[in-house]
């Protein structure tokens, strides 16, 4: 059922096959992938510092890394990892021989799974980048499907049938109805919406999916296209034992498009340049948010917040910054040092003093680990307390985050969402654990806090400021809803 032209990529129909596929046809790219994964696993990105791609304030970053290299520096390597992920994907996509949009999406999905696993599922930005590229692929594939099908539809051109196909395609081009599942796209009742996220059920599902299959085949397939859609469907159903979702792409994704590679590469380049300009775009807004004479409270160490504050200071704004030290990693110390170095009036407080000092604070500036789909925030552990104290005192809470931190996921697990428990060595000195009483005590060292959206007033991102209630909209612009939960 696979289009005959692409016998080479014949087994690129399941994300689990991606590694095997690379091994067979593209050993060089596989080596690249392996290298990357190893560095990711060993956390090499942080020590190797910034490459040439990471332009801008690299000197400062180096200095930062030197100053606190022994300390907790989980947050600092993030942009490097993100950039390098996109680079890796660019080089793999650019040089491998995939045929259709569907295959490319499968490849990306497989790569995403690999990278996620290599990153220990701790770095949501990896998945976000893969999703964004997938979105770009879908976007390109949807853009001009009429052209593409005209090449493949040659034999079965019954008039009325073709008419229907054309109108369906017209619909998809005009309204982008295929892009995401929405109330208005439901109105078109495209068959892929019916099959798209069909969940596996123990009984009754068999005949259902069969019928769907028939629907897909009969209604708007053009021979090969729809047929392969069906093939993928059944295959997906077999292999997706672990995940409940499997992708069923629209029929025209199975058509060969020669211009796809070019346009996808351009889209990736756009993402790259967005990442490069990230801080520049965020910092441009600094003067809008930080006013003369204000007292800003921030928590621990964050590159984004640091640059944001410095950008405001560079504009000759006089303001005071209070930094919570951020126990147990004490990133706040490094932060304070860096800010003071830039001539900002800086005060360090211990975390427990947050509430006491909140009354005189004008604005709270929180770092972000991830921004969630409901507008909630994953931030360094301790930030929830800060946000609550701010709420109590009606102090606005502003979060500074690049859009690559936008995660299409919901905080299903509450405080455990995207969280990680790390070694308690920073909480308790191991030498003390010899004490028979202390050894009975459990030490917990969570890395992150989940902050519900109602505690946050504004997200300042590289594409502007948004309220938490608007985040869902950004998600729809950045990711396709089918790609939300492809990496598990």
């Amino acid at each position, binding site marked *: 059922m696979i289009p005959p032209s692409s016998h080479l990529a014949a087994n690129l129909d399941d994300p689990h096959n991606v590694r095997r596929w690379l091994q067979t046809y593209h050993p060089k790219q596989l080596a690249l992938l392996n290298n990357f994964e190893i560095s990711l696993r060993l956390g090499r990105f942080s020590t190797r510092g910034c490459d040439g791609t990471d332009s801008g304030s690299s000197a400062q970053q180096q200095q930062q890394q030197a100053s606190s290299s022994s300390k907790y520096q989980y947050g600092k390597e993030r942009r490097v990892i993100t950039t390098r992920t996109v680079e890796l994907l660019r080089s793999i996509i650019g040089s491998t021989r995939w045929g259709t949009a569907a295959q490319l999406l499968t490849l990306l999905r497989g790569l995403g799974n690999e990278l996620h696993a290599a990153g220990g599922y701790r770095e949501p930005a990896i998945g976000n980048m893969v999703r964004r590229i997938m979105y770009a692929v879908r976007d390109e594939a949807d853009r001009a499907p009429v052209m593409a099908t005209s090449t493949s539809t040659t034999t079965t051109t019954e008039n009325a049938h073709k*008419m229907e196909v054309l*109108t369906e395609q017209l619909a998809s081009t005009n309204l982008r109805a295929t892009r995401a599942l929405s109330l*208005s796209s439901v109105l078109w009742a495209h068959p892929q919406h019916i099959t798209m996220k069909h969940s596996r059920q123990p009984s*009754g599902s068999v005949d259902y999916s069969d019928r769907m299959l028939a629907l897909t085949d009969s209604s708007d397939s053009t021979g090969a296209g729809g047929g392969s859609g069906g093939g993928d469907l059944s295959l997906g159903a077999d292999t997706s034992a672990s995940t409940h979702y499997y992708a069923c792409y629209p029929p025209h994704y199975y058509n060969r498009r020669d211009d796809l590679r070019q346009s996808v590469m351009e889209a990736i380049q756009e993402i790259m340049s967005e990442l490069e300009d990230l801080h520049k775009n965020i910092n441009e807004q600094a003067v809008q948010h930080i006013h003369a004479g204000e007292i800003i409270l921030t928590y621990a160490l964050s590159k984004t917040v640091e640059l944001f504050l410095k950008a405001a200071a560079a504009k000759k704004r006089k303001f005071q910054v209070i930094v919570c030290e951020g126990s147990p990693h004490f990133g706040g110390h490094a932060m304070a040092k860096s800010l003071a170095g830039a001539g900002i009036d800086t005060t360090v407080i211990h975390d427990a003093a947050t509430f006491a000092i909140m009354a005189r604070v004008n604005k709270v500036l929180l770092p972000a680990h991830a921004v969630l789909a*409901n507008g909630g925030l994953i931030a360094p552990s301790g930030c929830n307390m800060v946000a609550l104290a701010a709420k109590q005192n009606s102090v606005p809470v502003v979060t500074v985050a690049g859009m690559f931190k936008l995660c299409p996921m919901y905080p299903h*697990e509450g405080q455990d969402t995207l969280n990680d428990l790390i070694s308690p060595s920073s909480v308790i000195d191991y030498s003390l654990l010899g004490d028979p009483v202390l050894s009975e005590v459990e030490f917990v060292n969570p890395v992150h806090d989940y902050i519900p959206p109602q505690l946050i007033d504004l997200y300042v991102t590289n594409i502007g400021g948004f309220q938490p*209630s608007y985040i869902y909209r950004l998600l729809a612009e950045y990711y396709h809803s089918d790609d939300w939960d492809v990496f598990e």
Partner: protein
Amino acid sequence: MNSHSLRTSAGQAHWMGNSVSEPIVPSRARCDSDKMQILQRMMTTQDEYMHSPMWMRVGNPGIQDRRKEMAISSHRSSVMIINGNSALTWVTTSASAGNAPGSNDGIGGDGAGDDQQSQPPRSSSSIPLPVAAIRVLLNVIRRSKAETMMGLQAELRDASDVMVNFAKLGGPIPSTSAHTSTNRNATTTTTRYILAGRSYIALSSGCELFLKFITRASLDTPHFQQCKVQVLDRGTRFAELALMARSRISTIGCSFINDGCTILTHGRSSVVESLLVRAAQLEKKRFNVIVLEGRPDAGGIKAAKSYVKAGIPTTVVLDSAMGYIMERVDMVLVGAEGVVENGGIVNKVGTYALGVLAKELGVPLYVAVESYKFTRLYPLNNADLPDMGAGGSSTSGRSGKEENGKMGIGGAKLRFLDTLAWSANSTAATLSPASSSSSSSVAAVSGKEEGYETNKVGNNETTTTVEDKMTDDLHPYIINLPSSVTIMNPPVDFTPAKFITLLFTDLGVLTPSAVSDELIRLTA
């Protein structure tokens, strides 16, 4: 110990007069999988028509009807009335198949065991009302003699008006349904109660969505006949899509259920039911469910039965105990009759209180709802809700007698009963002595099936006699109010968006603010 609640629910159901619902659910269980095929075959032979299950039949009026239609067809509007009537009966019967309180449990026991076998229980095998309505509209298209798109649209609008009005007001009752037995009358009365003004929003938004769908389709193809074919084809898919919404929602919503959590639900929603059942049976989540009783239609009690059947540890509390119970709840999960444009929901009365309470205690409130229930209303408070049939209030008079012919739709009659006194007396007499332990506000529904089974059998055999006895039992405990007392019985209330954490829909998980976005994009 569970016999109180059971007895009570049975009793309540009886006061509301829905015991008549049982004749119309002959074999809905078997039909779901092959209903499309049956539907398509339906029109062909009268023989088949006569032998097809009744609720299948009604959407496709029989030969007599068609002849009648021919006779009157000189007049478009009359044709439409017939069409509309068939529409009505379809809706009413499938509504009672889907929603009828008794369809799957004791009261309306459908006799055949095949209902029980469908494991993800009744929820997945019944058709939601708006989907039934969409099918009716498809049939209207199929049988329409309109020559233009405008004509077709006008007919559809008429048909959906008839249906919506019926849901709203309970009438006009189809008098042309000659092909039905006396059961039919029973059906409509019941349905009027069942709809009770509640499903009106869902129905009208479903119809509206479909009309929009037709309009959009008509823009595609200039040629009318072609367009009609295409509309039918896509409309069928559209109905499929609407049907699948439920399973999609359950899949999405399950991830929000964590092991060991306690979920509070209110009212009876088939989406919520399928979600919870899926979580328990397919995803093997372990959680507790607390169900509010759901006066006056005992919706919660009925839902509790299906939860227990799915092996979920279930507790039933009185509606008024929601404040008491909230502190031990991890999340509130409700369905909705409609989702309005500002992201709030319209749902069974009590949801608003629940939402306010949940917010105060910091418990997330999730709403599981299909997207075709999104509706272009913008209520700011409860008074803004569209008139749900007979208003929300009625003056009570009389004792147990029917006051007049018209049953308050929105304000279905409320009876007030001293359940405690009744159960204290009646347990000794009619029930096994062991079960009177918990006359407190919390009655635990145990996981045992026996109670239901016996209840069911009793009902199946001699429904009327059992219930007559029950009324006699109840009679001394019914408290009669002087006629000067106004009784308000609003079927639904409006919960503003700020009390809602997230909506689980077939479009994905949405924040309340995303709802208006979807609605705006629909019209844009």
